[in-house]
């Protein structure tokens, strides 16, 4: 059973490679620079074949791999179906669904420019994210521990927070000296709101006995805020940061429409207007990989900080 399971990816990548090489391309599709997809399938075939033969020798080693084998087959099947629907038969509209070879081609030939766009986006995203997260945690703590701040600031948060960042564009454009600062502000705003709300609600839901214990141990109010309220609220703060991060990706694309010179969101919009959809998909792939990595990084950081929660809460 395990042998069959670890052989399936070999079979699927072989079939994918045969489909890519043997079936003729539709004349409707412009020719790609090179058969990149076939290269990928060939590489996958070699890797899965090696894993399969290693697995025959030491079955213990394959256990992990066979767990992922069905998923690997699923991805290969999806790419093959897409390959057939686009370049092989041209069933999907050619203009909007370019061949995978061309998308891969863009990723390779346009790599330097896309990389530059990515760096500009990351600079904007990280600036906005750090400002928004810091402001959110600060506001959240203030609302959480200070009744005065709760009275005056909390209604403001409730009113301003849910407004989508796009709605701020007209105001932001006239209030900020540069496009970069305006864009960073929009991203900061998107991160600030969920971080504030969850930090303050996190502090609000701390059981009172922690504060009482701290008081009987001789802790001052200030010490209690930073050594009891903040760490106890951290699980909530991270949920806020996670929500803020996903909101910041959405806002990034909006913000880069304000007149950015470079940026991955700007690149996607620009290429869409140029009707070069291969570039749009390349941009989307780079963006999704970046977002995936950033979220993974946030999760890893959270696991490190909240190590005391191990086994207590999972999300």
């Amino acid at each position, binding site marked *: 059973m395990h042998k069959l399971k670890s052989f399936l990816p070999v079979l699927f990548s072989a079939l994918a490679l045969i489909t890519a090489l043997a079936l003729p391309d539709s004349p409707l599709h412009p020719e790609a620079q090179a058969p990149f997809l076939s290269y990928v399938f060939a590489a996958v075939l070699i890797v899965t074949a090696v894993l399969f033969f290693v697995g025959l020798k030491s079955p213990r080693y394959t256990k992990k791999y066979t767990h992922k084998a069905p998923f690997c087959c699923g991805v290969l099947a999806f790419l093959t179906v897409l390959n057939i629907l686009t370049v092989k038969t041209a069933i999907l509209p050619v203009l909007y669904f370019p061949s995978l070879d061309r998308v891969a081609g863009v990723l390779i030939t346009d790599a330097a420019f896309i990389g530059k766009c990515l760096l500009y986006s990351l600079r904007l995203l990280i600036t906005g994210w750090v400002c928004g997260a810091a402001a959110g945690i600060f506001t959240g703590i203030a609302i959480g521990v200070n009744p005065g701040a709760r009275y005056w600031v909390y209604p403001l948060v409730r009113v301003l927070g849910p407004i989508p960042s796009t709605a701020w564009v007209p105001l932001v454009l006239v209030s900020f000296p540069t496009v970069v600062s305006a864009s960073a502000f929009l991203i900061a705003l998107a991160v600030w709101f969920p971080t504030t709300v969850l930090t303050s609600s996190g502090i609000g839901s701390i059981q009172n006995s922690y504060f*009482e214990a701290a008081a009987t141990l001789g802790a001052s109010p200030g010490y209690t805020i930073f050594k009891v309220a903040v760490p106890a609220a951290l699980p909530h703060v991270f949920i806020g940061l996670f929500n803020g991060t996903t909101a910041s990706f959405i806002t990034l694309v909006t913000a880069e429409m304000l007149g950015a010179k470079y940026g991955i969101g700007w690149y996607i919009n620009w290429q869409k207007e140029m009707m070069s959809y291969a570039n749009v998909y390349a941009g989307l792939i780079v963006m999704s990989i970046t977002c995936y990595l950033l979220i993974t990084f946030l999760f890893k950081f959270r696991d490190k900080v909240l*190590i*005391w929660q191990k086994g207590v809460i999972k999300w």
Partner: protein
Amino acid sequence: MVGGIEISHVNKEFTNPQGETVRALHDVSLSIAPGDFISLIGPSGCGKSTLLRLISGLISPDSGSVKLDGGDITSPGSDRGFMFQEHTLFPWLNIYDNIAFGLRARKIFRGSEKLVDEFISLVGLKGFEKYYPHQLSGGMCQRASLARALVGHPKVLLLDEPLGALDAFTRMNMQDEILRIRAEQNMTMIMVTHDVDEAIYLSDRIVVMTPRPGKIISVVDVGLSHPRARGGEDFLAYHAKILRLLNYTISKPEPDYYL
């Protein structure tokens, strides 16, 4: 010798969630000598926990006064250690950092690192310094919480049903532990409990309270020497006396049959 408590004519009212006023304590006076072990016992609502929280300074009386060595108690302080029913260890700190919390908060940790180790050994948690509370059993957490309350050398240790959540055997072990620590540390201890046997086993004096309104009806001196035999004849006599004071009469069960 320090750690004397003087409670005089204290009244305390609460408003319950239904909006009714509950008289938790009515004209309560009690004087506790330094180094005494006092138990506060009585049914729910008799104000025993309220009295303990008044001494800790977590709440203040509506009228009357609570004094520690002649000075009014107005706020919680490290001179009165408090051990809660739930262990209330901070889950984000390991056992060592939990026990050191009070010393760090008062900025006296530098130079007293040895003290933390000493108290970890005292409660038998050597080797568990790096563990987080969720990795330990309830009994071990209560030991850590006891060490945390003791490490700052309080004059008075307040215990709010600290063993209530433990199983019977862990409970009896912890009672011996508390007696051992008391002999070493020599401080005033005031404990709230539901358990008559626990009160007799540990206390010099037992303060018996009744509810509605919460008041002290009697203070029983336990004239037994340590170690006390649980279930010994004198022990049972005190048991019966306290139950009588609380209006629980002990009747012998009817035998199923006569010979």
